[in-house]
């Protein structure tokens, strides 16, 4: 059985390293992007099974990239989990308005992240 592919998007090398370490414990193939613009390009090319994306990024924010991915016919069905700095109403609302399927807040809790990724990948 082929491994499920997860696209991890973050401009912070530390956060990217952290998330990669957590997800490496599961049988996923990881692909990376470093900003929202690159995320859209990689998603179109790689067709991941799930996208885990930071919100605050250069070139294109996580909200903008998510909105674009959900508008495109070829990527709209890919579940997107946003990593937000704030778990407050306004920020979460903006995330869901952009079309994201779920969100996790910083600092990332490994168990919570793995549970959400497993959940959304299982469909």
């Amino acid at each position, binding site marked *: 059985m082929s491994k499920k592919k997860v696209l991890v998007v973050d401009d*912070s*090398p*530390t*956060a990217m*390293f*952290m998330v990669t*370490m*957590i997800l490496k414990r599961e049988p996923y193939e990881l692909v990376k992007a470093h900003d929202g613009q690159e995320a859209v390009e990689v998603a179109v090319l790689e067709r991941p099974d799930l996208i885990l994306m930071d919100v605050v990024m250069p070139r294109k924010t996580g909200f903008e990239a998510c909105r674009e991915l959900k508008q495109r016919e070829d990527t709209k069905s890919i579940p997107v989990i946003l990593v937000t*700095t*704030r*778990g*407050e109403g306004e920020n979460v609302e903006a995330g869901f308005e952009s079309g994201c399927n779920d969100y996790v*807040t*910083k*600092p*990332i*809790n*490994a*168990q919570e992240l793995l549970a959400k990724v497993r959940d959304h990948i299982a469909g």
Partner: protein
Amino acid sequence: MKQSDHGAYVRKVQEGAQSFAHDLLGEIERLQVLVATLEAEIRAETRAYSSRYAEIELQNSNLANLYVASYRLHGTLDRQEVIDTIKEIIANLVGSEEAGLFELDPGKQSLELVASFGISPEACSSVPLGSGLIGRAAQTGEIYVADPGRPPAGAGLEGRLTACIPLSLDGRVTGAIAIFRLLPQKAGIEDLDRELFGLLATHAATALYCTTLHQRLAVA
């Protein structure tokens, strides 16, 4: 067989059957108690296993955090990258949106702000050693963590100081990291944060020292 003998035989059989049924009921009861005991033991063991598993998972995550911090701090010879990494550790691993990184100016005996996020740099661009919570933490070399149950101990920007980590190298304080407000969803400083502070106290100091030295050598 005579009728009296037949009656005695039937009674004997009945008594035997009653005794057997009684023994059987006793055995069933004994087995029911045994099953209930075993079920309770299995439930307790499952609970203990789940709790131990969760504990190991947490330890695993905590170690991963410490590993990431250490790996990132020592993975470069670029001073700016070390500074960025310190900021990323505070933002992503500790969970703060306001922090400042200071380096000691031995000549002026003050802490000079070299990087910050979420705060106005003018508010704490220079802190005299021994002055205020940040200056005192740097002077004593002791990590300061605010007590959430008490009113703020500092004034102005220091009024929202959550922690101050003196950076030390070879027994000498070389700077400090001041962490102000935590992210709203972060309830407070946890055990892992304290371990991260301990790691930052020495590893951030070493990384800053090495990269600064490398930068000077490269220029020379």
